[in-house]
């Protein structure tokens, strides 16, 4: 309870400081509008259907991108993780492709698909894929050798092994990857809208900037932050749930 009130104090303090900076004339309100104005704008905006429609577009590309990336990463990651030959053969390729910043692909995506959601998806999928892929490989590699030998000696079929051995071991890793991927996918969904211009939250941000609408711009930044927070909280919850029935000691690679 004590902790909650301290945290609330922090948030309130931030709002007060924000309000004071333009009020004291430290920064022109044209560039940093009053916190109260931004909150008033937010209250008005959430009653507007168009706002929710834009939000839905952003979240759609986020969800579709995340789903495609996860599916591809689970299939490929399991295969690469389970087959030593594939792991060795793909290692260099993975190490070279993974650090490539996904935004470098924006021009290519625009050329291929024009200013549409599909172009955004390319970038979202590319960025989110690696997060899940790497974790799935870790997870599959983490399978206990004794457990695997046991499964073999009891003559479990390939399908049973996947179901009872691979899946339970790799699942917490997958959830960690999913949480990281969800955050990254949101970043790139909004980024793509800003740069490519497919409609959604990101394009609204870019439009408010070019229109000089500071209040709207700050309001949308707050919305983006809340969206990010929501995604983090939900996926952290899912991850924790998946951990409760599988206790595994894992590296610090979880954040």
């Amino acid at each position, binding site marked *: 309870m004590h902790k909650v009130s301290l945290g609330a104090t922090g948030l309130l303090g931030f709002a007060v400081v924000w309000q004071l900076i333009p009020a004291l004339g430290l920064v022109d309100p044209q560039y940093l509008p009053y916190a109260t104005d931004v909150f008033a704008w937010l209250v008005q905006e959430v009653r507007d259907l168009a706002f929710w429609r834009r939000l839905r577009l952003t979240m759609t590309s986020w969800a579709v991108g995340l789903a495609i990336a996860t599916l591809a990463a689970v299939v490929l990651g399991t295969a690469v993780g389970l087959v030593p030959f594939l792991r060795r053969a793909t290692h260099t390729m993975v190490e070279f492709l*993974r650090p490539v910043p996904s935004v470098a692909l924006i021009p290519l995506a625009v050329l291929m698909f024009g200013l549409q959601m599909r172009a955004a998806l390319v970038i979202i999928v590319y960025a989110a894929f690696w997060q899940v892929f790497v974790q799935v490989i870790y997870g599959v590699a983490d399978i206990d050798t004794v457990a695997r030998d046991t499964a073999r000696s009891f003559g479990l079929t390939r399908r049973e092994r996947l179901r009872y051995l691979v899946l339970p071991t790799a699942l917490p890793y997958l959830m960690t990857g999913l949480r990281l991927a969800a955050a990254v996918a949101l970043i790139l969904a909004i980024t793509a809208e800003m740069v490519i211009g497919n409609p959604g939250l990101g394009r609204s941000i870019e439009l408010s900037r070019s229109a000089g609408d500071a209040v709207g711009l700050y309001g949308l930044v707050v919305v983006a932050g809340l969206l990010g927070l929501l995604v983090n909280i939900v996926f952290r919850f899912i991850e924790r749930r998946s951990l409760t029935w599988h206790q595994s000691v894992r590296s610090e690679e979880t954040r």
Partner: protein
Amino acid sequence: MNTRPAGPVARAAANFLFALGLPFLTVVLWGIWSTASTSRFFVGPLTILDAFRQIWIGPAFVDDVLPSLYRLALGIVASIVLGVAAGVTIGRFRRLRETLEPLLEFFRAIPPPVLIPVAMLLLGITDTMKVVVIVSGAIWPILLNTIEGVRATDSVMVETADSFQIPSWERLWLLVLPAASPRIMTGVRQALSVALILMVISEMFASSSGLGYRIAYFQRNYLIAEMWSGILLLGLIGVSLAVLFGLAERRVLRWYHGMKEITRA
């Protein structure tokens, strides 16, 4: 398993094939495909290489690449210094930490690129703005990981320092920072990829020079091979950053990896 006992030469050859086999195969297939396909957007690897040489090895290196790298480096260094300094301070005082926690969670959750328009509004289209954008996105993973690392400093290690009355400055260098260093390095690794993204985006958005600007320019003017060469260059920068980080991490965390290896064995 097909691993019959093999000589060291055979093993080295196998390693070599495994390391470069797939990349080589990809490039060859790419070349065949690009000549066979009718798509204008996929040009052959040799054409890309040629464009790469013509564009980036020359004045563009000084005009576009160096300024980008300079801003990137400045942003990363500032993020590390500020993130660690603030993280140590916040991590050491429980009340301060609990006060700031929800606020920091919120700031971390803001997708960093949305700060570009804000920074443009506040600072105009300047170099400072781009560095500020990089810092404002890359600082969070470092800051939050440092806080967590400092908070989780082992209680017996702290009592040891207490009992020997280690003064606070030495305590910072000999206890707090090393103890938090594995977490700090995790944060830095995440910060590097964020920083690179923000460097590119801020230049695509608001610049008349730099790598991001140049690539977007090529795309708008349908200079396909040139665009690909830019993507290649960004990829190389990403890979180099990862390699440099790997080297630095191995140095800084040598004790940590050594210790882990022993406890695992």
